[in-house]
C-alpha cells in the first residue's frame, strides 16, 4: 500500500515542484501536473477498491495515515476535482487571460492545496488533520487574487482572517479532546489517533467532550461555510479564479465537514448523539435559510453559485444530524455536490471569459452564444435544485425521509419551504441567462472545445448517480455511514 499512498499524496507535491522549478514557466510543467493529477485519482480509486474489499490501508510511523470508507470517499472526490482543476486550469498553453507568472503561481498553489486536502482526509491523527486543514487556507488564500484587484484582495483578506480564526478555535477543541484523553489513558504516541480516541470515547468526561465539540463545530463550521460564520465564503468563491472556486466549493467545504463528522463520531461514542445532532440541525437550518434567502435577488452569477454552496452545506449538515439514513443522504449529497458544483464553477469561468462580466444582468442569450456550455449550465442548475434524473434528487429525497423517520416533521416542512425558495430563485435567474438577446460584442461559438469534455463527463456522472447506476458508490457510502455512526 506504500506506493498507493505515495502516488496519492506525492503526485500533487511533485506537480507543485515541477511548476516551481520550470523557469521560465513552460506548458510542459502544467501538462506533467495534469498527468500526475490522474495518478493521484487512480491511487484514490485503488484505495477505495481496497476498502470495498474489506481492508483498511494504513501507512507511516504509528499508522499516521489510515484510509477507511469515509476517508476513501473524500479522497476520491478531492482527487477528482483536483484533476479537473489541473486539466482545465491556467498553465496548459494558449491562455489569453493569464501570464506565465500567474500560471506558475496557480500550478504551485493549487497542487499544494490538493495535497493538503488529501492529507487532511487520510490522516489518522486529529492534530495532523488540523495542521493539514489549516494549511488549506494558506495555500488557497494566495491564489484568490490571481488577478490583483480591490475585490479579490479584499476577498482573500476576509478569507484568511476569518478561516484562520475559525480553525484556531477548532484547535482549542482538539486540545480539549486531547486533554480529556490523556487524563484517562496517559500520554502516548497514538493518543491523537482517531482509532485511540474512538476506543477511549465511552470513558471520557461528558462535559469536557461536549465543550470540545462546540469549539470543533464552530471552528470547522467556519471553514465549511456554515451560517452565521459563512461571511467569507461568497466573496472568496466569487473572486477566486474558476478552477480554484471549483476546488473550494466542490471539496474544501466537504473536507471541513469531514472533520466535523469524525469528531461527531467520537462525541457520539462518548455522550450519545443528542447534543451534536441538535447543534448540527440548528446550524444546518440557519445556513439553509440564510443561503436560500440570499439567492433571491442576487445580482452576480458566481455569488449565486457561492450561496448555493452554503445552501448545500447546510443540507449536508442537516443530514448529519438525522441518524444513519440522514448521514447516508448527506454523504451522497456531498459526492453529488462535489461533481455538480465544480462543473458549474468551471462553466461560470467559461461564461466569464466570453461575457467579461460576473453580473447576471450582463449575461443573456447564453444558449445562442455557447450552446454546449449553456446546455451544461442549465443541466447543472437542474441538478443543483434537485430535479430528477440527477443524483441530488435522490439525496434530497433521502434526507427528507430521514427527517420524517426521526420525528422532525416541522423541521422538514421548513426545509422544504426553503428549498422551494432556492428552486424558484435559481431557475428564474438561469432562465434569464440562457435566453434573450445576445449583448453587443459577444462572439458566438464555443471556443475551447476540449475543455468541454471533462465537464460533459461530470454531467454524465450526475445523471448516472441519479439513475441509481452507482452500485459501488452505494457500497462505499454504506460503509462510510457505519464509520460515522459507530
Amino acid at each position, binding site marked *: 500500500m506504500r506506493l498507493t499512498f505515495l502516488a496519492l499524496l506525492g503526485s500533487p507535491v511533485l506537480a507543485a515542484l515541477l511548476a516551481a522549478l520550470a523557469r521560465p514557466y513552460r506548458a510542459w510543467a502544467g501538462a506533467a501536473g495534469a498527468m500526475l493529477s490522474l495518478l493521484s485519482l487512480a491511487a484514490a480509486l485503488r484505495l477505495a477498491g481496497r476498502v470495498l474489499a474489506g481492508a483498511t490501508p494504513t501507512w507511516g510511523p504509528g499508522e499516521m495515515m489510515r484510509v477507511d470508507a469515509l476517508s476513501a470517499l473524500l479522497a476520491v472526490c478531492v482527487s477528482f476535482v483536483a484533476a479537473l482543476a489541473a486539466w482545465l486550469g491556467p498553465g496548459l498553453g494558449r491562455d489569453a487571460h493569464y501570464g506565465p507568472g500567474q500560471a506558475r503561481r496557480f500550478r504551485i498553489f493549487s497542487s499544494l492545496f490538493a495535497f493538503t486536502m488529501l492529507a487532511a482526509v487520510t490522516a489518522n*491523527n486529529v*492534530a*495532523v488533520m*488540523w*495542521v493539514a486543514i*489549516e*494549511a488549506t*487556507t*494558506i495555500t488557497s*488564500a*494566495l491564489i484568490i*487574487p490571481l488577478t*490583483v*484587484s*480591490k*475585490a479579490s*484582495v*479584499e*476577498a*482573500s*483578506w*476576509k478569507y*484568511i*482572517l476569518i478561516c*484562520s*480564526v475559525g480553525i*484556531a*478555535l477548532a*484547535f*482549542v477543541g482538539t*486540545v*480539549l479532546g*486531547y*486533554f*480529556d484523553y*490523556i*487524563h484517562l489513558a496517559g*500520554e502516548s*504516541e497514538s*493518543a*491523537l489517533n482517531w482509532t485511540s480516541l474512538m476506543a477511549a470515547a465511552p470513558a471520557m*468526561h461528558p*462535559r*469536557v467532550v461536549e*465543550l470540545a465539540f462546540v469549539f470543533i463545530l464552530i471552528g470547522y463550521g467556519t471553514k465549511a461555510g456554515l451560517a452565521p460564520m459563512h461571511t467569507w465564503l*461568497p*466573496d472568496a468563491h*466569487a*473572486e477566486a479564479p474558476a478552477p480554484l472556486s471549483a476546488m473550494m466549493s466542490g471539496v474544501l467545504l466537504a473536507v471541513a465537514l469531514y472533520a466535523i463528522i469524525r469528531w461527531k463520531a467520537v462525541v457520539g461514542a462518548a455522550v450519545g448523539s443528542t447534543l451534536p445532532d441538535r447543534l448540527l440541525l440548528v446550524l444546518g437550518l440557519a445556513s439553509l435559510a440564510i443561503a436560500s434567502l440570499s439567492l433571491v435577488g442576487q*445580482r*452576480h452569477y458566481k*455569488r449565486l453559485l457561492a450561496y448555493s454552496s452554503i445552501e448545500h452545506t447546510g443540507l449536508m449538515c442537516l443530514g448529519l444530524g438525522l441518524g444513519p439514513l440522514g448521514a447516508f443522504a448527506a454523504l451522497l449529497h456531498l459526492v453529488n455536490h462535489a461533481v455538480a458544483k465544480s462543473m458549474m464553477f468551471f462553466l461560470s469561468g467559461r461564461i466569464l471569459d466570453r461575457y467579461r462580466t460576473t453580473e447576471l444582468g450582463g449575461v443573456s442569450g447564453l444558449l445562442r452564444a455557447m450552446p454546449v456550455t449553456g446546455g451544461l449550465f442549465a443541466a447543472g442548475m437542474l441538478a443543483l435544485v434537485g430535479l430528477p434524473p440527477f443524483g441530488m434528487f435522490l439525496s434530497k429525497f433521502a434526507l427528507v425521509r430521514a427527517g420524517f423517520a426521526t420525528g422532525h416533521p416541522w423541521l422538514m416542512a421548513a426545509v422544504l419551504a426553503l428549498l422551494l425558495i432556492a428552486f424558484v430563485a435559481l431557475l428564474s435567474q438561469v432562465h434569464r441567462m440562457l435566453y434573450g438577446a445576445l449583448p453587443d460584442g459577444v462572439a458566438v461559438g464555443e471556443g475551447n472545445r476540449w475543455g468541454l469534455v471533462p465537464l460533459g463527463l461530470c454531467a454524465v456522472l450526475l445523471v448516472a448517480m441519479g439513475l441509481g447506476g452507482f452500485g459501488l458508490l452505494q457500497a462505499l457510502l454504506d460503509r462510510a455511514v457505519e464509520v460515522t455512526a459507530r
Partner: protein
Amino acid sequence: MGSLFAQLAVMGSSLVLIFGLLLLWRRGSAAHIAAFTAQSVALAATVAVIARFTGSAELWVVAAMFLAVKGVVMPLLLKRMERRFGESRELDPYVNTATSLVIGGLLVLFAYIVTRPVVEVSQLPTRAGMPLAMGLIFVSLLVIISRKKALTQVIGFLMLENGIALLAALGTYGIPLIVEVGVFLDALMGFLVMQIVVYRIQQTFESLDIEQLNRLSQ
C-alpha cells in the same frame, strides 16, 4: 513543589492575559507590538516553568521556539510592517475603549464558567491557569472583531494563538512535539501569508483601514 509550581503557572498565565488586555486600551500599533512581544516572552517563560517542574525535554524545546519565533522574529516582522505603513492608530474602533474593557472583563468571567468542567477534571497543579488562557482566547476574538486596522487584527490573531498554546501547555503539558512543530510551522506560514495580503491591501487600497473593504457587502 506543588504549590510553588502552581503559583508560578498562575502568575505566568495572568501576565499573558494582562498583555492581551493591553491591546484593548492602547491604540497605537507600536504599543500593540510591544504588548505582543511581552506576552510571547511571558508565554515562553510559563512554558519553561512547566518544563522545569515536569522535567520534560520536549517542553524546553517548545519554550525556546516560542521565545525565538514569537518573541523575536514575529515582532521584528511586525515592526517592519509598521515602519512601511507608518504608525497606525485605532482612532475609531467599532467598540470604544471603555466598553471594550468591560466586555473583556466579562469575557474572562465567561471563560471561568466555560472551563469549569475542564478544571474539575484536571489533576494537574497548573489547572488554575486554564481559565486565564481561555480568557485570552476570548479577548483576542474581541480584538479581531472590534478593531478596524488590519495590523491590529493580525496581532489579535497572533495573541489568539498564544492563548491556545498556553491552554495546551497548562492542560496537557504540551501536545506531542511533532504535532507542536507542525502547528507552529502552520502558524508561521499563516502569519507570513497574512503579511503578504496586508501588503496587497496597502498597495491596492492605499490604506490599512478595513472599513475600506466593503465592496463585497452585497
